[in-house]
Every structure is written in C-alpha cells, then in structure tokens.
C-alpha cells in the first residue's frame, strides 16, 4: 500500500486499467443509485442529471486543457460568477449581443490569465488566483453585491436557451457541440496533439520545436471562454445571476477533470475523459440529493474525492520534487 502511495498509483496502474476505471465507476454508480432509488431513472430526473452534467462539463472544458498542460485555472468560478451577473443584466436589452459580449469577456479574461502565466512566469495557481480576485471583485461591483434578475424572461435568447430540441434542452446541446468541436481539435489537429507533448515534458517539447507559450495561452483563453459560458448557462437555469453563483465551479471543474482520469501532472487524459467525469459528478450530486444527503456534506465528499482522485491519477515519476 505504501508502495502504491509512493509511486503514485498513476504510474503503477496499467494503461488499460486507468483508461477504463472512470467508465467502470460511472456504470457502478448508475447501478448503485438506481437500485437505491429507482426514481433516479425517471425522465424528469434524467433531464436534471444531464442538465447538471452539461453545466459541469461546460465549466470543465477549458480546465481540461489547462490541466493537460500541467497547470491549473483557479479563476473559473469567479469568471462564471462575473459573467452570470453581466449576462443577467444585459440579456433583456442586448439579446444576442449580450451572449457575444460574454464570449468576448471570457476570451479576454482567459487571455489575461495566459499572458500573466507565460509572460510574467508566475505559477499558474497564483496567477489565476490573482486574476480570479479581479473577476470576483468585478462581479460584486457590477452587481452591487446583490442578485440580478433577468428583466425580461421571455426574451429570445432566454427562450432559446430554455427551449428543447427533440427533448434535449438547447443548453445541453450547446455544451455537447462545443465539447465535440474541442474534442476534434484535441485529437485530430497538430495543435491538439501538442497539448499532450507539452504536458508530458516541457523541455522535450521545447527542444522539438513546439512553441509552448502559444499553446498555454490558447488553453487559458479557452478556459476563460468556457467559464464565461458557464455563467450564461447558470442564468438560463435560474433566471438570475449573482456575484457568487459560479464560485463553487472552480473546484467542481477540477474535480470533474480529475475524476475523469486526466492526471494533474498533465500529458494524460483529455476531453473524452472529462465527459465521463462530468457524468460521474452529476450522478454523484444528484444521487446524493435523491438519497437525501446534506448539501454541505456533499462539499466534504467532493473535497475528499478531489484529493483521492488526484492521488490515484498522479504519476509520481514525473514530479521529482513535490511542492
């Protein structure tokens, strides 16, 4: 046991085991929850689960690439909060313009993260902590520290987000589409492959001619954008935005990515895994609700799960000096 802890199960577990473990966990969870309370399988509940999953997925899309590179984005939640506020404020009057603005804000924020990280050489967790503080502040200032309700709930954008296409809510479809596009980039383009090279070994990547900074900035920019869109999705579910609405999503996005099997050390995993992780988290959350577990206890579970999953996926041979 100590041996496993020492090496990091990530190094010892065979590739196949690591690849399939999350799926197995997912299936087991569905089984357990389903047996405990068959109400889980009801159509309305399933939609709830999938909506939750797509929310988690959206927040984790960019984070996946960031972690794949071996860094971390701690500003996701704050960006989501800030954008929930801005979107709720503007959507009634600006319609699709508000959506566009959110995307731009997300890109700008992510770009800031990427630049601070690459140009100023500040460790990503501090850089994003710092910028996260800026987003947090802006969220409070813009909303005047209060909840912002969407003025005109019937406006076209809100209706679009709430509509269903073949029983699937548009918000879910949007997320899955984005996920698919990013997945295609990740698995089938040179740029996507370079994420893995950088995450595996930055020195080797640099000596192989990969322009590391470029890809890091891209990953953080995308992370900012998906975090921003998470804010939009949040508003679409409860029709208002607030300055701390998205805060929990920082840790949730990390949990999703890590639970799906993407290693914190980088170079292993990807968006396919994140999809599984999102489903696991959603079912866990929904399952706990259905079973009647205290909401705050869920936090403890999430915290413990993050640490556990991190421990199992970490490949210790990649970290000579643990900090």
């Amino acid at each position, binding site marked *: 046991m100590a041996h496993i802890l020492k090496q990091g199960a990530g190094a010892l577990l065979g590739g196949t085991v690591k690849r399939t473990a999350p799926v197995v966990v997912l299936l087991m969870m569905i089984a357990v929850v389903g047996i405990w309370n068959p109400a889980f399988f009801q159509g309305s509940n399933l939609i709830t689960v999938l909506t939750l999953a797509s929310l988690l997925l959206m927040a984790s899309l960019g984070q996946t690439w960031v972690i794949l590179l071996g860094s971390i984005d701690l500003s996701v939640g704050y960006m989501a909060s800030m954008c929930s506020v801005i979107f709720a404020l503007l959507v009634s009057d600006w319609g699709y313009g508000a959506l566009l603005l959110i995307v731009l804000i997300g890109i700008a924020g992510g770009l800031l993260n990427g630049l601070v990280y690459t140009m100023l050489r500040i460790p990503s967790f501090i850089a994003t902590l710092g910028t996260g503080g800026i987003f947090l502040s802006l969220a409070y200032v813009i909303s005047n520290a209060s909840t912002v309700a969407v003025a005109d709930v019937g406006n076209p954008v809100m209706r679009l987000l709430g509509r269903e296409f073949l029983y699937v809510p548009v918000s879910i479809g949007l997320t899955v589409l984005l996920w698919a596009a990013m997945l295609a980039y990740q698995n089938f383009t040179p740029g996507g492959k370079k994420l893995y090279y950088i995450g595996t070994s930055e020195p080797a990547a640099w000596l*192989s001619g990969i322009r590391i900074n470029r890809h890091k900035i891209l990953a953080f920019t995308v992370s900012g954008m998906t975090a921003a869109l998470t804010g939009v999705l949040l508003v679409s579910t409860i029709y208002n935005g607030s300055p701390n609405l998205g805060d929990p999503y920082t840790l949730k996005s990390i949990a999703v990515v890590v639970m799906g099997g993407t290693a914190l050390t980088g170079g292993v995993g990807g968006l396919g895994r994140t999809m599984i992780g999102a489903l696991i988290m959603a079912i866990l959350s929904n399952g706990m609700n259905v079973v009647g577990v205290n909401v705050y206890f869920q936090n403890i579970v999430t915290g413990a799960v993050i640490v556990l999953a991190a421990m199992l996926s970490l490949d210790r041979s990649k970290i000579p000096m643990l900090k």
Partner: protein
Amino acid sequence: MAHEVLVSMRNIVKRYPGTVALDGANLEIRRGEIIGLLGENGAGKSTMMKILVGYETPDGGEMLVGGKKVQFRSTREAMAYNIGMVYQDQALLPNLTVLQNLFLGYEHLFTRGGFIDHRKMKQTGREILDMMRLHCSLSDEVEALPLSTRELLEIGRLLWLSEISGRPPVIVLDEPTTVLDSNEIRQLFDIVRSIRDKAGIIFISHHLQEVLDLVDRVVVFRDGRDIASLPARDLTVAKIQEMMIGRELNTEYYLVDKQREPSERVVLEVKQLTVHGKFQDISFQLREGEIVSLVGLDGSGKEEVCRAIFGALKPDQGDVLLFGKRLNLKRPDLAIREGIGYVPQNRREEGAFQHLDIAANVTVTLLEKLAKLMFLPRKKGLQLAREWIEKLRVRASSPHMLIRQLSGGNQQKVILAKWLASDIKVLILDHPTRGIDVGAKEEIYRLLRNLADQGVAILMMCDSLEEDIGLSNRLLVLKDGRLTQEIDSPADRKPSVLEVIRAL
C-alpha cells in the same frame, strides 16, 4: 606519511543500463596520505567516489571502514562515518548564511533548552573560519560569496564534523581547482597539507601537474578498474597520460572504412559565437557530409555551443549561417524549420517524451507536414512510425509502445528517427551513445555514417575520445570556452588518443 587504513574498497562492481561502470575496482585510503585519482571520463573514478560517499550503491564487492564492513544507502550514512565529498554547491544552501550553513542539521549541539546559543555557535564558527583562513563574515549569505570561499567552507564543515565525532575524516575533493586562481590554489594546497595527518584525502583533477604537486600517491582508473597505484614522486605527466589511455583505436568498430571525405560545400558556418560565462568567439565551419567532433574537458563549453547553434541558448554575440543564410537563434523551432536537428544528452527528460508512444515521439516535429487542412488522423503517424521502426531495426512490438518501455539504445533510435524523418541538413548530437549497449552503439554509428553519406553535416560530442576520433573527420578542441585547436582525423591517419588528450 601514511598511517592506518581508513577505508578499503574491494572488487567494486557497478552496472548501469547498457554499460559496466566499475568492473572489480579497488582502492585503499589511509590517514595521512593524499591520493590523486585520475582517469578519463567514463573510466570509473567518479562512480567509485559516488559509491564511497554513499551517493550510489555498488552491485558487487565490499567496502570496509575502520575494518568493519559497511554499505551506505545515502550520503547521510557515509557522513556518519565522516566520509564526505566536497562539491561546490552540494552541501551549502545559497539562501542561508555562513553560520547557518556550517551547522545545518547540527544546531542541537549548541542549544540550551531548545534555544540556540548564538554566542557559542559564532565562536565555533569563527574557529572554523580561522582554520580555513577565510575572511568572510559569519552573517554573509552564501549566495554572495565567491565559489572558492564556498569550497573552503564545505571543507571546513567536514573537518569540524569529523572533529566532533572523533573519527578521522575521509574527504574527497572533486575538481576543486577549476574555479580557483593560482593564489587560491596555493592556499588550498597549504590547507590540505596542514590537515593531511588528520585525514585521508582524495584529490581529483584533470590538471595533472597540479596533482603531482600535491599528492603522495597516484591511482589511475581505466575501463572501470584501478590499473595503477604509484607514488607521485616516481611519475611524470607524460607517464600518467600513457597509463590513462592504453589501447589502440578500434577502427573496425567505428566503421572507419565507411568514413568519407566531405564535399567542399559549407553547410553551417559559426562566426564568433559568444555566450558570456560559457564560451567565447567560437568560429568554425561544417561541410556537407562531414562529421565534426567537439572535444574538451568539463566546463570547456562544448555542450553550450551546440545548444546555442540550435537556438536553445541565446548567444550574446556572433552568428550562425546555414548555406549562407543567417539564422535566428531565439528558439529551437526556428532552427528546426531551417533543417537543424538536436539530440540532447539527457534522453529521459529532454530527448524523448517518456510517457508517449513511439509514433508520437517520431512525429513530433512533423505534425504540420503530415496534416492536411489542419487535420491529422492517427494512422498517418502510426504508419510513419512503423516504417522507421523497421528501417532502424528498433526492437519494439508496435508503434503503440510507450518509449519508456524501450531500452536506451532503442529509445535513441526512435529519437534519431524523428530527425531522419524530417529533412535535416545538420544534426547535432550531445553524447549520443551514453548509456547504450555495445550492439546498439554500432547500429547508431552505421546510422551516422549513412547520414553523412547523404550529405548531412554532423556536429557531435561523444562519451569517449576514442569515439570522437573514430567517428569524425575532424576534431575541434575547446578549452575554457575557446576554440584552441583543430585536429584532423582522416580515415587513413587517425590521431592517437594520447595526442588529443595532450591538446585538452
């Protein structure tokens, strides 16, 4: 005058993947005697010392300290027996003061009720400084001190530690004079001589004359064994050099018959390249089909020159021209684009993507070329990998194998495949056969000969002078960062290792 035996190392064997570093080596260290340990790079002397001080564990043989058998699993255990090696920064922390460094880990000897008695500590500290004739202050941050001072501080700490344990120390000084000027060298020797009676001292240096000046006995290592142990007064520098080398060059092994004369066309021209603190004013040319070796001792700057040409180390001055066109040396990808490849020394961390498969490692520089309209399906990479696995006879069952599962030699072949698959004009290799077994080495030599035949210009540095001489058309000698000599190494008239060693 030599007294009792402090440490006795017998029949030490140490193997690394692909090589045998020590093959039954012996060493006896006595109190009151200064031993000069000599040998070429790779002869085994560094490994022997690493085992002595607990940095490595031997695979065979035994070590006795004070007559008792010991096996050190860490340098801490060796320190408990007062055996230590003095590296420049190995035992000192730059962010701590002199005082803090001297007594790190031993503060409890100066505490009263858990609190440090600074007066007592400073007093002892000053004694050590006096003994080592140092003028620095106890509150200086080590970071700000010159390297010579740090060296003496480390020796001082070792001596103090031995004093409090009452056991005579064994001190290994590894190339201590490299950073000292002549005055400081004289001072160091004085101090070493003054403590000679109390300790057993091993002195490693490539400045052979210095060694003869200081030591009582010379031990020469070659091919993983101690081959001679003679009193210093009986020796001259020339005699030592002869002992260090030994055999004739194996021309068959290095495929010397396949060595071809390079064409007249200049591929790479290096002009007055300078990186402050590493090398200065380096100028030379590489021709089509030519293999050129950079030779020089540690610290000569040859590794840095290669990195600078590749764009991995930004030069302060100078230019590199490829077919007459000036290169931008800011980043490796710029050099790669022009057709320069680089095989780094550190295979594990810089050469290969250990956790990715062969296909990924082979295609890393070719991604854009293989992709069509931004899209790059997996099978193209796999196909390419299969081709090269076959061509280079890489012992791997499939391109899906992770590169870390391959042996050193096969890993290197995959790394080479990456460059061979691109259209390179120049290949730079930093110690390409390090840690590779004999069979794989031969295959790599063949590869390099083929490359040269195709007109690629090769610049490299090898693990042994033999390899450098055997493989190359020409040797460039670097000394202290400057290009001092050019030695021709034509197929019909190869220089002897002795000849080259004398030039270093």
